[in-house]
């Protein structure tokens, strides 16, 4: 074994010596043979001839000896690499095209990998993250899985399979006033065991302990995030002990967390307060610590030796008793899982899967293309392979050579793709993942993990093997020198033809889907029956500073008056639930209906001039105005389709509708707000006046401006602050910005698939051009004869372009079918009506066909320019 190794190593490093010795040895044999023949009376010439004849092919014997000696794999590979490098340099355009193609295709693969890693796969970056678990409530339908604080305490105290269970509410919008600054900061309300559970260490001071998280509302202590400490307190150690105001209450700073704490959500945490301060941090329940207020998420650490399954069965057993009979929509079970990825959007897994399929299809298209190109090159290299085989190289050795060359291209391309994907991911993060739909900053870690790097390189290697298949088969069929004419026969292009048609089909399908997605993103933004342009949004939250509903109403009236008085403001309105263009839900019915006939609809409480502000057409009646107050009769507005559903025979205005428990008179019907994807059917909406809910305190304003709303945002905020500077203002963004953030998956999909489509189209064009150009050059003689016999140039061009066109048209037809199928897959990302789809299919097919014709024209003109006399002289 050792000897074997020594032998092989010697063969590798002392190759020259070993080679010379081999040559000497074989020459000695020949000379002996020559001497013997001369001794028997032959002339030296005769003797030499006979000796060589007897000996056989020296090159083959030497090669067999090298094989026998077990020349190392490394040596052959080095040789092949050197050879491959020379080949690459000899046809630089082909090599650049191949490496470039691989770079662009593997960059797409690496991007999907990084997206999937950050959004879906990555564990929380803490020590022993394997034993971390999240415990989430299930509700029989998609929901966030939060539980109430008392339920958390009962689970924490009874669970034995975990070594600690922490509660956290990591997306608490806290209005912080300190050191002359006042701003909404994302905070986390966490139990005291949160810090040790995640292995966090303070950079300064300390974290709060169990005693400080035991009595409700007593210990007003806060731990600052590192970045907040830096920006608000200039990283001064004297920050410890000072007091800042959170949602109107004073808190003492006791510590600073280290930078880059393990985030459990994409929203960076600016400060941490104890769960006993939930009543300050969470204002949507009357008592945030009550069992009816579901607010905290749970994260725990498995006890040593315990598994996920142990914890699952235990938590099912210790679930609060009241949950057992709970209806769908309320907490009724517990799910234990490992925390993976940062995704909070149920569309994202589907998006990532779709992009993954697109990236793989793109890579396969590249393989087909490169396989075709290299196979054409391999046909040109028949002579070279023939020479090598005549010199003793076996077919396997040649295949190996071709494979090494392909892998070289693939790996260089793969490495390039990894680098390029970093650029792409940085751009994606900046364009789409920097801000949520309410204007809060987000922080996703899209850095390339070792796993993604390895997987991408593995995929590149697989691709290299894949696109080596065709050229390798061709190379193996290379005829020996002198055995058959060295000139290759005309290449068959039927197989290549089908590959090209498939590429064209994929290009058409990708192009159509990308266009559909881009159009969807645009149509949501431009809106049907609403107009987002020139609308600014702002959230005013008097509840955080303990406003009563009465005082809040006064405040709102003053704010609206002031804003309306601004020259650049056209109209102002507001919503009481959720946000502008969305809202909450309600059950509606007619007074005559039985309870089980109730319809679930979308619902919001909107201010006067809401529909004027959104430019939603009023189909009948009027919209809410200042007449609709808490004292006036209860009124409602419904959308067109809901009206048609409730009163099919018309006569909507003046009819009665029951929303929740309240009977209201319909005063207006508005056009349907089409802001739903194709997967959802038309949405019914009902609206009640903002002022008829006497409990209203907070609101989200919608302000239509005459100029660019983005530029006006600071002025608008200043105007609101003039009414009461203490009332927190947040989420000051424009409506288009918000819609763009809401439709992130659509826009990411459009950009990514558009990239893939552009690349696929380019590849189809290059592939078609190369195949036709090669066919023309191989048929120069035939074309020459036809020209000599009087074939017109136009007919020649027609016949070549016709060949290309057949392929592209066949591909485009398949592509349209593919696109129609793919449209169904991405239906949840499509917002525009399906009626116009055919235009996108036709447009994509037309574009790819046009590009195909363009790619065919060049070789066709070259064919037409063939001089018969030159062509016929060619061998």
């Amino acid at each position, binding site marked *: 074994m050792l*000897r*074997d190794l020594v*032998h092989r190593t010697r063969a590798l490093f002392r190759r020259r010596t070993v080679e010379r*010795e081999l040559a*000497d*040895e*074989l020459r*000695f*044999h020949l*000379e*002996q*043979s020559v*001497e013997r023949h001369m001794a028997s009376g032959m002339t030296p010439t005769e003797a030499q001839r006979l000796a060589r004849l*007897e*000996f*056989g*092919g020296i090159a*083959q*014997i030497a090669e*067999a*000896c090298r*094989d*026998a*000696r*077990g020349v190392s794999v490394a040596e052959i590979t080095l040789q092949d690499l050197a050879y491959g490098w020379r080949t690459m340099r000899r046809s630089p355009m082909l090599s650049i095209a191949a490496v470039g193609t691989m770079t662009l295709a593997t960059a797409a693969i690496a991007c999907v990998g990084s997206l999937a890693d950050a959004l879906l796969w990555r564990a929380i970056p803490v020590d022993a993250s394997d034993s971390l678990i999240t415990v989430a409530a299930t509700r029989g339908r998609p929901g966030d899985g939060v539980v109430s604080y008392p339920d958390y305490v009962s689970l924490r105290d009874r669970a034995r399979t975990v070594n600690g269970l922490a509660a956290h509410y990591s997306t608490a919008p806290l209005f912080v006033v300190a050191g002359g600054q006042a701003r909404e900061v994302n905070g986390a309300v966490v139990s005291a065991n949160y810090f040790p559970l995640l292995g966090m260490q303070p950079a300064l001071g300390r974290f709060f302990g169990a005693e400080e998280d035991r009595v409700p509302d007593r210990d007003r202590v806060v731990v600052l995030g590192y970045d907040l400490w830096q920006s608000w307190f200039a990283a001064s150690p004297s920050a410890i002990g000072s007091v800042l105001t959170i949602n109107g209450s004073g808190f003492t700073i006791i510590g600073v967390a280290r930078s880059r704490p393990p985030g459990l959500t994409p929203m960076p945490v600016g400060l941490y307060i104890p769960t006993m301060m939930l009543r300050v941090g969470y204002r949507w329940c009357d008592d945030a610590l009550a069992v009816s207020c579901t607010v905290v998420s749970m994260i725990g650490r498995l006890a040593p030796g315990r598994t996920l399954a142990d914890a699952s069965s235990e938590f099912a057993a210790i679930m609060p008793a009241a949950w057992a009979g709970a209806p769908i929509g309320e907490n009724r079970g517990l799910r234990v899982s490992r925390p993976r990825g940062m995704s909070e959007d149920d569309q994202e897994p589907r998006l990532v899967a779709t992009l993954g399929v697109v990236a793989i299809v793109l890579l396969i298209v590249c393989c087909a293309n490169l396989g075709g190109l290299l196979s054409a090159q391999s046909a040109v290299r028949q002579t070279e392979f023939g020479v090598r085989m005549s010199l003793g190289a076996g077919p396997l050795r040649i295949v190996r050579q071709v494979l090494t060359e392909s892998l070289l291209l693939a790996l260089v391309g793969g490495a390039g793709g990894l680098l390029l994907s970093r650029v792409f991911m940085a751009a994606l993060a900046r364009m789409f993942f920097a801000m949520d739909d309410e204007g809060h900053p987000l922080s996703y870690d899209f850095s390339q993990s070792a796993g993604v790097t390895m997987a991408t390189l593995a995929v590149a290697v697989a691709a290299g093997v894949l696109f080596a298949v065709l050229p390798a088969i061709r190379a193996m069929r290379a005829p020996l020198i002198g055995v058959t004419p060295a000139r290759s026969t005309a290449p068959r292009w039927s197989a290549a033809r089908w590959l090209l048609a498939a590429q064209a089909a994929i290009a058409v399908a990708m192009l159509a889907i990308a266009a559909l997605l881009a159009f969807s993103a645009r149509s949501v933004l431009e809106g049907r029956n609403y107009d987002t342009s020139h609308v600014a949004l702002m959230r005013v939250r008097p509840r955080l500073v303990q406003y009563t509903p009465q005082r809040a109403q006064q405040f709102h009236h003053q704010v609206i008056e002031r804003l309306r008085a601004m020259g650049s403001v056209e109209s102002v309105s507001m919503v009481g639930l959720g946000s502008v263009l969305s809202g909450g839900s309600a059950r509606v019915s007619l007074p005559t209906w039985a309870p089980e006939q109730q319809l679930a609809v979308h619902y919001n409480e909107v201010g006067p001039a809401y529909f004027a502000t959104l430019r939603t057409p009023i189909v009948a009646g009027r919209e809410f105005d200042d007449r609709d107050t808490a004292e006036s009769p209860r009124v409602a507005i419904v959308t067109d389709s809901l009206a048609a559903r409730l009163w099919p025979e018309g006569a909507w205005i003046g009819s009665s509708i029951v929303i929740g428990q309240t009977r209201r008179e319909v005063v207006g019907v508005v056009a349907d707000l089409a802001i739903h994807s194709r997967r959802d059917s038309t949405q019914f909406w009902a609206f009640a006046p903002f002022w008829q809910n006497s409990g209203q305190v907070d609101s989200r304003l919608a302000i239509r401006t005459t100029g660019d709303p983005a530029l006006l945002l600071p002025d608008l905020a200043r105007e609101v602050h003039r009414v009461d500077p203490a009332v927190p203002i947040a989420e000051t963004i424009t409506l288009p910005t918000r819609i763009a953030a809401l439709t992130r998956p659509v826009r990411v999909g459009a950009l990514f698939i558009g990239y893939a489509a552009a690349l696929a189209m380019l590849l189809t064009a290059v592939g078609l051009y190369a195949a036709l150009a090669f066919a023309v050059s191989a048929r120069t003689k035939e074309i020459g004869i036809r020209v000599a016999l009087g074939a017109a140039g136009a007919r020649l061009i027609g016949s070549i372009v016709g060949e290309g066109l057949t392929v592209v048209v066949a591909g485009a037809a398949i592509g349209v079918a593919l696109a129609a199928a793919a449209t169904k897959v991405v239906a949840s990302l499509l917002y525009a009506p399906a009626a116009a789809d055919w235009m996108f299919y036709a447009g994509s097919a037309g574009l790819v066909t046009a590009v195909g014709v363009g790619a065919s024209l060049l070789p066709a003109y070259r064919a037409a320019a063939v001089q018969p006399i030159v062509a016929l002289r060619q061998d």
Partner: protein
Amino acid sequence: MDLPQGTLDLLILKAVALEPQHGWGVAERIRQISNEALKVNQGSLYPALHRLERRGWIKATWDLSDNNRRAKYYELTKAGRRRLEQQTDAWRSLTSAVNLLLDHH
């Protein structure tokens, strides 16, 4: 007569067992001792020599030949001697078994 499959290694080991031989010598010796009955093809002789060397059954040294030329001489190693004995026994028992079978009427 062509060599039966697998016997070349045995013949080479035997040929270099007495004294170191170069490739030409090995071929000559096999030819002479077998009364010209066995002929070794160079195309298989040299790869076989290199293979046996790699296995460690023979080792090579460069020396001057009878006619004063540099030649590569192969000699048996200890492992090679053991191998030769094993192979010889194996060959004997094989041939005697085959003989028995052939002689059986």
